[in-house]
């Protein structure tokens, strides 16, 4: 047993210090950026941060633990509804609301995770898809509690007084979301480096072998589900603040599928990939939407162009960058290094050994 294993509890990794330093650097940088941009861009920044929380959680579940979820939007909905219900007609401290949302989503995720622990691949995908389809119907059914189709409204959190009276609420939300995202990243990075993370990967890579090594497969999978659901709950809570209204329409299947596609486009299995994915998820529609409205197209074309482009990007990305943005960048970096005479370190996930291909 190594020294570090003796000194650290299993969920704290020896790289904690480095992660904290990186997060601190990123925080300072992002806070500076957010102070220089307008309210609209702050709003987008908040969206990127909150979606990065959800995609990072999904990365742990799908990328690291190998459980395919097509229903993560539903888990976000649980966080969002918890937030909206708590704030219905009263004010509560932000931290309390966020914690309550995380806890609720994690609990419901645990229940679903236990129920789904024996499901694999497409069967799990189907069950989670049914979750994404079924759950938004509950608010429609119980209008009195959940506000029905119109949903519940949530107002942006007020910035504290010491930031001045003119401090934009959008910027304050962006700061909250960034802080939450960085905290999540540090936590997840540490979990992935720890023995818990190694067990996640072992179960993904070879379930039977992991079980033979004494890993409780079902327990590990439920753990990943809980962790991932908690992240989705946090993202959902921030989403409620961000969008101002929590309604079933906001958590339909497309949201779940967008989260999954972001994770794969970014680069499956890495937290950096999750961040890349959330950037694409938020900025691509904004960009293509602006482009479509500038082109003076007929409305039937212009309205659907962003969707068409998003779809085409998904298809092309899978054909051209099978390992996502993160994998693509890694390969690019490798090429540059090779060019400068250094031996490129083979990037994780990028297979470059040329297995003699079967014919045809």
């Amino acid at each position: 047993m190594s020294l570090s294993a003796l000194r650290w509890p299993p969920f704290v990794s020896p790289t904690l210090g480095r992660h904290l330093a990186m997060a601190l650097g990123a925080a300072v940088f992002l806070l500076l950026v957010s102070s220089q941009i307008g309210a609209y861009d702050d709003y987008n920044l908040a969206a990127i941060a909150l979606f990065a929380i959800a995609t990072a959680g999904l990365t742990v579940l799908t990328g690291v633990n190998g459980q395919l979820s097509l229903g993560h939007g539903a888990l976000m909905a649980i966080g969002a509804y918890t937030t909206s219900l708590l704030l219905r007609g009263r004010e509560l401290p932000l931290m309390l609301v966020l914690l309550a949302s995380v806890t609720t989503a994690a609990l419901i995720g645990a229940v679903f995770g236990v129920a789904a622990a024996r499901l694999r691949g497409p069967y799990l995908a189907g069950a989670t898809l049914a979750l994404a389809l079924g759950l938004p119907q509950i608010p429609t059914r119980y209008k009195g509690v959940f506000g029905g189709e119109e949903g519940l409204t949530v107002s942006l959190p007020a910035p504290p007084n010491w930031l001045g009276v003119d401090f934009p609420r959008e910027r304050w939300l962006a700061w909250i979301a960034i802080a939450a995202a960085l905290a999540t990243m540090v936590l997840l990075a540490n979990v992935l480096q720890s023995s818990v993370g190694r067990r996640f990967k072992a179960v993904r890579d070879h379930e039977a072998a992991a079980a033979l090594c004494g890993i409780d497969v079902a327990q590990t999978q439920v753990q990943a589900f809980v962790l991932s659901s908690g992240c989705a709950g946090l993202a959902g809570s921030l989403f409620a603040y961000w969008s101002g209204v929590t309604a079933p329409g906001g958590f339909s299947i497309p949201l779940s599928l967008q989260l999954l596609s972001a994770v794969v486009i970014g680069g499956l299995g890495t937290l950096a990939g999750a961040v890349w994915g959330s950037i694409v998820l938020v900025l691509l529609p904004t960009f293509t939407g602006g482009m479509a409205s500038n082109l003076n197209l007929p409305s039937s074309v212009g309205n659907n162009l962003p969707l068409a482009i998003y779809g085409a990007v998904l298809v092309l990305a899978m054909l051209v960058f099978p390992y996502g943005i993160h994998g693509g960048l890694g390969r690019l970096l490798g090429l540059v290094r090779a060019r400068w005479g250094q031996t490129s370190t083979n990037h994780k996930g990028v297979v470059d050994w040329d297995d003699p291909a079967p014919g045809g």
Partner: protein
Amino acid sequence: MLEIVGLTVAYGPVIALQDVSMSIPHGSITAVLGANGAGKTTLVRTISGLVRPRTGSVRLDHTEISRLAPEEIARLGIAHVPEGRGVLAELTVEENLRLGGLWRKDPTDRRRALAEAYELFAPLAGRRHLPASTLSGGERQMLSIARALVARPRVLLLDEPSLGLAGRVLGQIMARIKHLVRERGLTVLLIEQNARSALSIADEAVVLSLGRVAAADRARRLAGEEGLRHAYLGF
């Protein structure tokens, strides 16, 4: 004639075959011998197109085939009986057998080939409508070989046919194959771990060691070389 010239095959950084050359004359049985990992299976997989060589060529009657897809190579009359799991367990015995000759045009001859297969491999006839998953290991091996013969191949690649087969049954099958070699000019490449039995029926023999050709000669003469036998063949 099946000719292999300067064949090099690699799996990533691992060289499996290096500069292997041999020619397998028509109407003969050539045994390829060697220890585990010598490259025997890689050799047959390369001939049948499942593995792409890095360099070198495989020629069937002077036609280059090493760049063809496996299905096209099979349609040229090269039948490969893969080691172990070649049987489609979900299909019935008869369906497996029919698949062997499906690429051939003449339906009457296909039926005749099927009937011959049942005649030769009698245990299969009684189970023709059962799923192949119900067969024993030896019966599966039998089915795999029978299916290859239904295609009426010019070249037969047998990868470890003795696995799971009782000696007596194997003897019958090999006798039949030998008959086809003599009567119809069938060319056989026989991969075997059990060198003694392989040498007893082969005309020619090649010994592979760590991906290279260590020796090649008439089978009878190789069997007589004591030093070689000790070094590579273990008997």
